[in-house]
């Protein structure tokens, strides 16, 4: 029997997977190159969402300008995060690098609460629902999916076709030899962080169209993004891409059969099972 609602759940899963893949991309890029997990990645996105909200809904800038400003802002935040927080602990124990960004998580969340309050804020941009036959799909999700896909293709081309991209890939393969080849790791690290920040900013622009903003919103999708990255193998961009779609299907189809939270529980259990089957991620290895 053909079930149109199941098909809708699968399609929604695909669209959700697109945005998850974009979220995972920035985190994987940073881990692959600098070997650091930004626990505060979702909080950077939260700041970006607030930026779009204030620029567009409060100061009435056109949406495209707000989006551009958001991407630039979060990209600068990413660079600052690396410069002032990560760099001092780069030579310390690896776990300290993870923990220090956890401190930034609280810092950003607290600052957002202080500055913007705990009320939910909505951008107020409503895009129509798309109807294809008997299927109803959200246009915002569709746009997010397409942009996420384009962003990833752009990133792929950047990494494979440009000098800087090649340098980034080289650094990620061997951190100690590349300085001898005339690549300045400091500059590359800073640049990668800015790039990761820009991807977070792009994700913020897409998420702000779909969700209400509040200071703790990072906690609701941050863990999911980490798990997607680990599932695909930390630092493995292709792996993260595939893992995002797998994970999203579990959430969406599981949520269709049971309840949204059970979808997440199923996806998390799948993650745990996969970890024990392939401890270095489904596609162990990097970049």
């Amino acid at each position, binding site marked *: 029997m053909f079930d149109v609602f199941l098909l809708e759940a699968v399609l929604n899963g695909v669209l959700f997977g697109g945005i998850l893949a974009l979220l995972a991309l920035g985190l994987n890029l940073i881990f692959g190159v600098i070997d650091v997990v930004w626990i505060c990645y979702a909080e950077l996105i939260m700041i970006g969402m607030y930026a779009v909200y204030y620029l567009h809904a409060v100061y009435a800038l056109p949406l495209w300008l707000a989006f551009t400003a958001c991407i630039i802002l979060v990209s600068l935040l990413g660079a600052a995060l690396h410069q002032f927080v990560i760099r001092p602990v780069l030579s310390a124990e690896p776990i300290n690098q993870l923990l220090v960004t956890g*401190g930034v998580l*609280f810092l950003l969340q607290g600052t957002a609460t202080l500055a913007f309050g705990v009320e939910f804020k909505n951008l107020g941009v409503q895009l129509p629902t798309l109807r294809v036959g008997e299927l109803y799909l959200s246009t915002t999700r569709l746009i997010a999916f397409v942009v996420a896909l384009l962003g990833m293709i752009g990133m792929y081309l950047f990494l494979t076709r440009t000098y800087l991209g090649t340098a980034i890939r080289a650094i990620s393969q061997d951190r100690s030899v590349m300085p001898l080849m005339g690549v300045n790791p400091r500059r590359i690290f800073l640049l990668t962080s800015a790039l990761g920040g820009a991807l977070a900013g792009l994700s913020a622009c897409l998420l702000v169209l779909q969700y209400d903003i509040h200071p703790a919103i990072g906690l609701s999708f941050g863990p999911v993004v980490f*798990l997607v990255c*680990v599932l695909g193998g930390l630092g493995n961009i292709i792996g993260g891409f595939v893992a995002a779609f797998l994970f999203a299907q579990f959430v969406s189809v599981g949520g269709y059969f049971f309840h949204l939270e059970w979808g*997440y529980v199923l996806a998390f259990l799948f993650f745990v099972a996969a970890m024990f089957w392939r401890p270095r991620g489904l596609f162990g290895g990097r970049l």
Partner: protein
Amino acid sequence: MKALAWIAVVALALLPLVGLGNYPLHLMIICLLWAYVYTGWALMGRLGMTSFGHGAFLSIGAYVVVMGWNHFGLSPWLGIPVALALTALVALLIGYPCFRLKIVGHYFALVTLAFSEIARMIIVALRDYTGGSLGVTPNTALSNSSWSLLALQFSSKLVWFYVVLAFWLAGLWIWTLVDRSMVRIALEAISQEEDAAASIGIGVTRLKLGVTMISALMTCLGGVLYAQYQLYLNPETVSGIGVSLQMVFGAIAGGMFLRLGPTVGAVFTLLLTEGLRLALGHDVHGLDTTLYGLLLVLFIIFMPRGILGTALALAQRLQRTAPRPATA
């Protein structure tokens, strides 16, 4: 030194008897309770196992006991063994594969994070029974008396003070036992170089699992205490990424390599939040979290050994440079 420690403990135990107000007593209970939980976390954290999953154990302790009482009339005295058994099972489920497959460092932190999130999702998903995000209150047994041993509910804060004091002391004692045993030496070797440790005949999986088990069971009991004392639970305060990070950072801020480090961390975080609340009132939301986050960043960059660790190192340096008293 040992006599001094005992005097301090006795003084602490007598402190509430001089007529502390309800609020200071409440602060002391909360402080000792978290000090106990952080100590439990640091037991494995300091040996290179940075768990972000202790929220799962805390919530099992809290929710299993309260759910048993509310829905089945199961006394917490029976609920506690059930919660402990479930915790042991979950710890085994996380620990055994992780340690067998050598999931360490970032991966271990993130895999265990999945478990605290699973716990939170399950609690929210079972909202018909657990009250979901709105939280749940244990059915009261205090309607016509001030205490009920059967329901493990006491309206007197004094009782709770001595209960958590006992748990905290027991936690420190467990720390000492682990610290003095060969297990710690073996585990330190493992945290430095796992393969080398295995090559000289250290049973890596078994030892790591043992410490994880102790740590998890301690945290589970902490959850029980928290639920029975506060008489209100919600998934955000006992499970998920928030409370798990809070445990990690409390222990690290105090200094997770020292026995009293996690306790100092608990005192520090509590003084910070309560102090700011008293100074600024209830209206300024977020300042405590902001400062807390900022301090954590500074701590990890500038004093990774925590408050107590840094203080001790400083004291030692001062002692060495100070002119020695002339001894005839």
